[in-house]
């Protein structure tokens, strides 16, 4: 019997765990370690943040699903990895600390034959002083953050209804933050709700971003075949912001937040501040900050993890200038080069470099987005890692027949821009591949026939459809595996 331990129960880890159990059956053990007792469908947090959904509509308890599927679930936080075991154990193990009521603070060694690290991001609010829902800005990164944001947003709406002008600052809260798409959705949804209430004359909505040009979204932008022209996503993004009455500040690295005020540096090296009544600023992401030790107890964290805490995999991490970046730098199987029974999936793997061109201000501040790996790619990577682990366990071989490089994988992003069955709207964007491949597609970096940018009611229906479909799939109900990631 083999034992596979999955760290994390987000989109990637949960997908991996379900496929592992389905493929391995009762003869092997699948263990999930996650400090969160709920699964959350993160893309719908936007609707919680504008009061259109309750937190219960975007989350469900993990334990009953895992019990039904025969997966062992430990509500705990992984603290250390010992890939070689120790003097008393030949097997690799993870040291976990329980966070549930019954066993809070207790630690346990969880041995494994295969380890899938899918810990997702640590929301690094500390990297920007004053940032975060516990301090002076809001967040929609989790359902409870989004609900907290809605409570504060409601206060701003009430003030506008009383004729008091409000400034909304939405965007990235760190010079190298990613996940612009979520913040962009939130800005559009706030504008939609403001207009719906007839309050636009009392609102100044500002989009602040570390992108060099709008529409970069951490993937170096894209080109879209639209209206008889091939246009950059800059045009697409500026157009929708202007249509919704949102002005913007780009090339901005927010470095400090105080009550009602954000401080930022522009790429030209100048410093500015922007006052606000309500802000939602996405933090930088970091890895789970686990430590690793070898059999002798010597720390090997830097061997396993990159400096940001994300796990090194089969990528080329050689430092090289933007002009020398290649598609072959990106990983295909997400296997640790140091220990072949360890994998990282979703946000937990360290990308070899960005997708957006690195930019630096005259003061030496790096201001550009780091690469996104959320949603669809996270789910696909989780599935492929699970398929390869199943193959290795069942055949005893060490090859990897399943591959999912972000240089070949496409992605769709549906940016909600207003809720309502006949009045709603969303921007549907597809890119293929996710990482631009300038060798294969020298003209536009991607397959222009697979790249789409369409705005309309259909996008809203799709986002709503995906909300119900992916929650159904995550609950592992009948036929769940037939639904693609």
């Amino acid at each position, binding site marked *: 019997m083999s034992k596979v331990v999955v760290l994390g129960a987000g989109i990637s880890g949960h997908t991996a765990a379900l496929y592992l159990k389905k493929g391995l059956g009762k003869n092997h053990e699948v263990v999930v370690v996650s400090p969160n007792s709920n699964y959350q469908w993160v893309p719908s947090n936007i609707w919680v943040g504008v009061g259109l959904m309750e937190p219960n509509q975007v989350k469900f308890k993990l334990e009953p699903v895992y019990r039904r599927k025969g997966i062992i679930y430990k509500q705990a936080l992984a603290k250390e990895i010992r890939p070689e075991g120790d003097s008393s154990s030949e097997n690799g193990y993870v040291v976990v600390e329980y966070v549930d009521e019954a066993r809070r603070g207790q630690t346990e060694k969880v041995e494994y034959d295969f380890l899938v690290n899918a810990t997702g991001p640590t929301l690094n609010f500390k990297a920007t002083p004053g940032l975060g829902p516990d301090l002076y800005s809001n967040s929609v990164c989790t359902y409870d953050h989004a609900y907290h944001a809605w409570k504060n947003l409601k206060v701003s709406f009430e003030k506008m209804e009383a004729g008091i002008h409000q400034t909304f600052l939405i965007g990235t809260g760190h010079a190298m933050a990613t996940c612009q798409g979520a913040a962009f959705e939130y800005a559009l949804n706030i504008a939609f709700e403001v207009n719906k209430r007839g309050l*636009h*004359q*009392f*609102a*100044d*909505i500002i989009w602040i971003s570390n992108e060099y040009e709008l529409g970069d979204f951490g993937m170096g932008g894209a080109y879209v075949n639209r209206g008889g022209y091939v246009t950059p996503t800059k*045009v697409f993004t*500026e*157009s929708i*912001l*202007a*249509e919704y*009455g949102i*002005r*913007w500040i780009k090339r901005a690295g927010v470095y400090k937040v105080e009550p009602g005020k954000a401080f930022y540096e522009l790429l030209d090296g100048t410093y500015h501040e922007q006052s606000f009544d309500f802000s939602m600023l996405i933090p930088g992401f970091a890895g789970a900050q686990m430590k690793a030790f070898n059999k002798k107890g010597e720390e090997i964290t830097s061997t396993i993890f990159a400096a940001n805490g994300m796990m090194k995999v089969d990528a080329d991490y050689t430092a090289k200038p933007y002009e020398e970046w290649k598609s072959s730098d990106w990983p295909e199987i997400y296997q640790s080069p140091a220990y072949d029974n360890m994998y990282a999936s979703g946000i937990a793997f360290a990308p070899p470099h960005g997708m957006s061109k690195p930019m630096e201000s005259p003061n030496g501040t790096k201001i550009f987005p780091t690469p996104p790996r959320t949603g*669809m790619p996270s789910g*696909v990577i989780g*599935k*492929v890692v699970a398929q390869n682990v199943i193959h290795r366990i069942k055949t005893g071989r060490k090859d990897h*027949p*399943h*591959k*999912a490089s972000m240089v*070949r*994988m*496409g*992605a*769709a992003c549906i940016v909600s821009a207003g809720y309502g069955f*006949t*009045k709603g*709207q969303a921007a*549907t964007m*597809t890119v*293929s*591949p996710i990482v631009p491949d300038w060798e294969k597609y020298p003209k536009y970096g991607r397959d222009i026939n*697979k790249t*789409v940018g*369409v*705005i*309309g*009611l*259909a*996008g809203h*229906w*799709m986002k709503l*459809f995906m909300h119900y479909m992916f929650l159904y799939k995550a609950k592992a109900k009948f036929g769940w595996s037939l639904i*693609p*990631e």
Partner: protein
Amino acid sequence: MASIHERLKNEPYSEYSFATRPTNATLFWRRCIIKQIYLFFALNLKIMRIVVGGHS
């Protein structure tokens, strides 16, 4: 009181004033149920093909 949107869209040389804006016809087609039903299926199919074809 004019909204920021109203003030900025006519401010010469602001980036905001250069942004492309949809025509009334474009806005109509974005909400036209028949066209949007077609797009719903067409875009879903396109996304499905991209997802399935992107990994092995």
